[in-house]
């Protein structure tokens, strides 16, 4: 009876506080977004410089007696690769501000389109993998911490070490051998869709999902293993703290103690991980993509790097820089949501 009364009495205060907090977070977010612009500009300069100062250019890898060296010089001039670097950067920036990411030198088509084509498959793989990672990693971590030194904890630890030690490509090949090229053939061995099929709607979705299973597993297992360890140690840390002992002392059930009191604090480091994962979601995973012939961003970045396809490289790196900053901002906001002690003024 008293407890209910107290709750009613203090109700308006947290409400106001939440409101004020909400405003503070919004102001903070806007301020951070504005701050991002000059940082992003600086980042593009550094990226541009690093990319351009690397030896070679899009044509230097073309070594073939049928290639006309004069024509290559003409192309270099036409693309302004022989212009002074500040001029090249200014041209790139000007185009960017008009919303133009340029035309790929090797694909001979607009960069925006190339990236757009890869975005769907990359996100499908990235998001699926992350969902698997968090859906399994967090519960396993919690269980592991709650039953420290039990057989379950030991099994999880063993799995984590295995998962962290096995390279994704090796695990990928094992998956292929087991589920698509051996006597059991239940998953396709490569690609994003069935070759030659022109399905749409739900059939297309199912086709992609079918192709997604093995690469997502290959990528996910390392992630699960890592996250389990993070959650476990952070949970153990929190469980040792005084307020948890207090909660236990006043007779709360273990479930309430763990899931209501401990979990929130234990998840703070996980938020950092989520924030850091954001660029990874669209960055792709070159080796897994290569093994499963997944049309993702990782392979695009890799070939663009080898071929010095400057417009593609600049666009991808700009995107990664932006997402890295956005990820850390989201993590900072996430802290405020989880931890009321954190203030943003």
């Amino acid at each position, binding site marked *: 009876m008293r407890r209910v009364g107290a709750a009613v009495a203090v109700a308006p205060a947290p409400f106001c506080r939440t409101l004020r907090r909400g405003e503070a977070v919004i102001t903070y977010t806007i301020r951070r977004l504005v701050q991002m612009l000059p940082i992003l500009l600086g980042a593009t300069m550094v990226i541009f410089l690093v990319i351009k100062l690397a030896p070679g*250019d899009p044509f230097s890898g073309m070594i073939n*007696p049928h290639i006309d060296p004069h024509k290559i010089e003409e192309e270099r001039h036409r693309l302004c690769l022989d212009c002074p670097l500040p001029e090249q950067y200014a041209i790139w920036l000007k185009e960017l501000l008009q919303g133009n990411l340029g035309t790929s030198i090797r694909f001979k088509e607009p960069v925006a389109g190339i990236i757009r084509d890869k975005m769907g498959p990359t996100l499908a793989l990235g998001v699926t993998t992350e969902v698997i990672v968090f859906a399994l990693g967090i519960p396993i971590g919690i269980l592991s911490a709650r039953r420290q030194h039990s057989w379950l904890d030991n099994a999880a630890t063993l799995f984590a070490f295995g998962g962290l030690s096995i390279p994704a490509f090796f695990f990928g090949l094992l998956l292929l051998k087991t589920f698509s090229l051996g006597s059991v053939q239940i998953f396709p061995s490569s690609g994003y869709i069935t070759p030659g099929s022109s399905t749409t709607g739900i059939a297309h979705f199912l086709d992609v999902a079918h192709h997604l299973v093995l690469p997502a597993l290959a990528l996910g297992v390392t992630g699960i293993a890592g996250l389990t360890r993070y959650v476990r140690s952070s949970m153990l840390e929190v469980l040792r703290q005084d307020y948890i002992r207090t909660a236990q002392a006043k007779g709360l059930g273990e479930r309430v103690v763990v899931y209501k009191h401990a979990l929130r604090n234990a998840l703070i480091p996980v938020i950092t991980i989520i924030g850091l994962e954001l660029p990874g979601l669209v960055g792709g995973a070159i080796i897994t993509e290569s*093994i499963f012939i997944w049309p993702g961003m990782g392979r695009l970045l890799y070939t663009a790097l080898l071929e010095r396809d400057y417009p593609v490289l600049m666009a991808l790196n700009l995107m990664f820089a932006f997402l890295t900053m956005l990820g850390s901002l989201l993590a900072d906001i996430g802290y405020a949501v989880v931890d009321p002690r954190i203030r943003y003024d």
Partner: protein
Amino acid sequence: MLKRCLAAVLGLVLLFMVGCNKSGTGGDGGTAGNTPVDGGTLNLSMFSAPKGVFNPILYEDQYDSNVIGLVFDGLLMNNEKLEWICDLCQNYSVSDDNKTVTFKLKPGLKWHDGQPVTTADVAFTFRAVLHPEYTGVRTGDYSALAGVQKMLDERDDLDTQVKDKKITDAESAKKKMDSWNAWLSGDGKKAINPVDDLTISFTTDEPYAPLLQNLATSIMPEHIFKTTEIGKMADNPATKAPIGTGPYKFVEYKKDQYVKLVRNEDYHLGKPHIPTIIYKIANQEVAIGQLKSGELDFMPINPADVELVKSDKNVRLETRPDFGYQYMGINFDNAFLKDKLVRQAIMYGLDRQAIVDKFLKGYGTVMNSHMPPVIWAYDAASLKPYARDLSKAKDLLAQAGWKDKNADGYLTKDGKVAQFTLKYPSGNKVRENSAPLIQANLKEIGIKVDLQMLEFSTLSTEVFDKRNMDAWLMGWSLSIDPDPGAIFLPDNKWGKVTGWTNARSEQLIKQGTKVLKVSDRKPLYVEWAKILNDELPYIFLYSQNVVDAVRQDKVMGLKPDARGTLWNIWELWIPKDKQG
């Protein structure tokens, strides 16, 4: 290093996979019946994604050319002896002064969209390559046509003036167009001369033997491209979704996944039996498993992986020599390597046979000069074989004045150590493995080699642009015509990189393009190859064979020869029980 580890582990996994995968279906179920039937899908593979530039004069990537080869035809093609015979043409003739080639097109040829093929298409294709706004890199192949070299010299001149800021880009562009128009109404009329709808002739300033090969390139449809400016050809939808005359029509390219093609019912050499081809992008390490499971019908295979499929009764292996070879290039600015005796000593000191035997598992040939065995100008008997002979190598070095004075194992002369840095690119496993072998071999004759591995574009900049190297490893991919001018004439980009010059070599190279008959050209190239064999501007290493693996229970009608394993793709067929 990381890459090599990776490859080794991948190899292991595959061994494991293959070892476990013996439960496949038994042998020659499909060979019953020899009458070709229609139907089925052929699953081909390549290991890197094409760029999707399926335009015969714009593409730069060899994977794009896989698709272009199925979609397009040229005026000429090869027979099994790699001689030039008619493809789109009905016949061709060379004038008495050897300067004019006249082609008569086959009547009734059609583009994939049903339009007739005429000489306007042929003329368009070659004029586009010569147009000043053309953004590809193939212009040089046609510089022998009447008046073209003059026009190209004018362009170079204008480019230099722009560089020196004497004129602007706009002025230069205008002058280039002027000179182009002047050429069109002058020499251009005889250089590329469509006489009527089916007759076209090409005339050169001087007789030029490699012209036939260069005229054999794929012909493009004028009616599709004529409304597009030449400079914007890449934006024409037909660059991405090509329309040709070849045995297969392009359907779609799913980026990084596959190219789908369907047969051209009107193909002029006969209607193909197989209705659909899926050209899959595959992972080289996984493809072997896919071939064995029947998911792929064809793949090029690494010599080192041959063992993995050899025992599979359903897989047929086809080997043929390649049009390329690997070499160690020499910078003649390096005082040590500049000495011919030293280069010959290096040839004797290297165990090149070991590269072929161990790294290529025997699928290759040791090279002693520039011409690879598959080219008609190759004549092994006339060349010194430089079989490994350490005492001979040491003698030659001693003759050159290099002696081991302080007994540290390395030779010295005038206080300098016999030493050079070998730069080599990452990416080609056999080449990567050759470098440490070269280092170890040369240590035995007292030469110290420092190795430096670089990423390919970085290396090629170091070598071809900056000439910042002593020696480097690289390879050439050659074509059927043996003319080595682009690689060994010291007045061009590739030829000047070594710094080696030889008057007789230049003379022979130039003579070799001026006579057209193989019987007249061969002695010139044999003599030329002997000069290289003795002078060694490169340390010639090896030529790797091409090994293809095909599902022989499914793909019928194969006639593999020097042209390739699948050259007669329109004659191939799939038995009824494998069509599902």
